[in-house]
């Protein structure tokens, strides 16, 4: 999708990196250990493309955290992991070396907080840098199959023509544990105008 020109796209990548970096430092502080996060890839795609990308790129079972947001852009954001690795991540976060077979109630909450911190920082950074406002709802953690993902993310809830998906790869590394996840931002295009305007204003100020 070429809603954004190259400069705008680069700016978004930069802002996401900034947000993810802030999330990493917040997480490091929380677990008293170094948490490294990086964003190797970011792309804007349409709903059908997202559907295909989820199907092709994601493992069959997922653990995730979803949060609604509204403000200068409206939509839903989600952090997605291979389910089999999510527990490893939680264990690394809380410094446990035991490997339970199933994710418990408490681990579900921990995962929710992890996603919460990450998504909040990304959205807040995006909004703050662009001098905009955004607010987020409380996070919801889930375990689903990849086929259920579009339903869970309400991908087809609104007008698919007017929905844009920002798919971001994110690499985690902490305490000898490394894994790749995805951030998916489902953005209502009715609000994308504000987004584009804000990006242009930011870029104009740079020049």
């Amino acid at each position, binding site marked *: 999708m070429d809603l954004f020109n190259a400069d705008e796209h680069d700016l978004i990548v930069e802002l996401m990196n900034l947000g993810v970096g802030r999330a990493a430092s917040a997480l490091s502080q*929380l*677990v008293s250990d170094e948490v490294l996060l990086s964003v190797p890839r970011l792309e804007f795609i349409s709903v059908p493309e997202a559907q295909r990308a989820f199907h092709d790129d994601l493992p069959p079972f997922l653990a995730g955290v979803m*949060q609604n947001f*509204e*403000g200068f852009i409206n939509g839903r954001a989600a952090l997605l992991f291979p389910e089999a690795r999510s527990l490893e991540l*939680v264990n690394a*976060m*809380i410094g*446990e070396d*035991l*490997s*339970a077979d199933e994710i*418990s*109630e*408490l*681990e579900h*909450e*921990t995962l*929710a*907080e992890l996603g*919460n911190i990450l998504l*909040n920082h990304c*959205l*807040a950074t995006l909004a703050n840098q662009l001098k905009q*406002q*955004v*607010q*987020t*709802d*409380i*996070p919801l953690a889930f375990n689903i199959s990849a086929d259920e993902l579009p339903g869970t993310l309400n991908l087809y809830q609104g007008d698919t023509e007017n929905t844009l998906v920002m798919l971001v790869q994110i690499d985690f590394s902490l305490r000898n544990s490394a894994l790749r996840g995805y951030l998916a931002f489902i953005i209502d295009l009715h609000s994308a105008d504000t987004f584009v305007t804000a990006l242009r204003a930011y870029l104009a100020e740079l020049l």
Partner: protein
Amino acid sequence: MPNSSELSGACLSDILDNLDCTDLLHSLDGGVLLLDARCRIIFCNRWFIRHTGFKEAALLGRTLAELYPNQLPLPLQDAIETACHQRMGRILSYQLHKRLLPLQRRSPSGELRPLHQSILIKPLSQSDLTLIQCLDITNAVKREQHLRAGERILKLERKVLELIAQGDALDNVLNEICATVEQLIPDATTAIMLLDEEQELLSIKSAPSLPQALLDSERGLDLGNSATTCIRAVQMRALAITPDVHRDDGWQDRLALATQLNIAACWAQPIVAAFDEVVGVFSCYPQRAGSPSEHERQLLQRMAHLAAIALERHRRVERIRFLAMHDPLTGLPNRSLLNEHLGRNLRRAHREGNQFALMFIDLDGFKQINDFHGHDAGDDLLSVLAGRITGQLRGTDTCARIGGDEFVVMLETVHSADAAELVADKLLTCLSTPVQRGQQQLRVSASIGIALYPDDGSSADALLTRADDAMYQAKAEGKNRWYRIR
């Protein structure tokens, strides 16, 4: 006409419209607070009032930071402010924030315990209010701790089982079992005590955390004499508990020791091997007086069981080793064990400059016994004669059966050839003395070849060949005699 679902839908929305929201929030089993844009409490439900101990009037209009000065964790304060000012929703999970609000709840036994919680902070849309929800997850935390503890035991158990399976030395395995329990029951030392074969004396086999000097000085507990916790465990074949050693008669003689080692209580779990045989005790000495919890009882049981498996396996390995090294009929060492002893004795004699003797013994007339009286008679005769030979020897000497009616005796040290010849004479006498078997009288004699280290050879092979040759010479010279080739 509206259908029934439309009707009930209409009713439902009617009910919901008229629902008293405040009443609903008060009846929730969890804390609910409403904060204004400046983080001040404008509503709190009954649960919250109950668990904070504050009066409602004292809560309203104040911030949590004001209510709990210097007690509110920074991440919580931060999250509340971010939510109230910037409208960002947050969850604070228990695992990442072990302490949130300083709330307490009463345990079933009536004690006040910290209330474990997770907190949801939700900025309400279409208003500048923020909803704080506090969930009591104390029970989930307990379940989780239980689960984790179970996993930890499993992991350690697996480690011990691996050691057993790999055939690690018994001492290592038992030490590992002790170390496992000491990890899981902090501030407790442990010991594994074993019963001797007569089942009279209980002595320490493994106690990695007790001082070695103490272990050396302990002679063991006499089952007939005292009634310590460990002995009670053996006698009752069940977990014996002394919650306070200072109030236990069985411990009066050992109170000084208990004080020195900081032992306040003793829990002893019998180690029960195959055929329900109590072979020892696994004992745990906590530094605080008290009885084991259900979880600790299970742990002691499981570890005693592991010790039983390790001991059982050790016993079997020993048995197999014995069988591999001994003659099943007479119980004497076989050729392999003889070679082992001979090799060791050669090295030692060489090192210390000793003399030692080897005697090759072959029975005269044994074939006739088998032919006339049958193999059973022959076997019985061999058993009796084997006993007679060992009866003439010192404990450090070896008598091995290396063939049908062939024995080799090794006298560990001799001062002279005469000494060896004297033993040979005694052996000739005892071997030619008739053996009574029911009505039968069985009689054989023996031909003995003697070889002396170092005069007659300096290697095992040379000495054995020399003794064998000498034995044939004794046969050739009329049997029932000894011979030494000079």
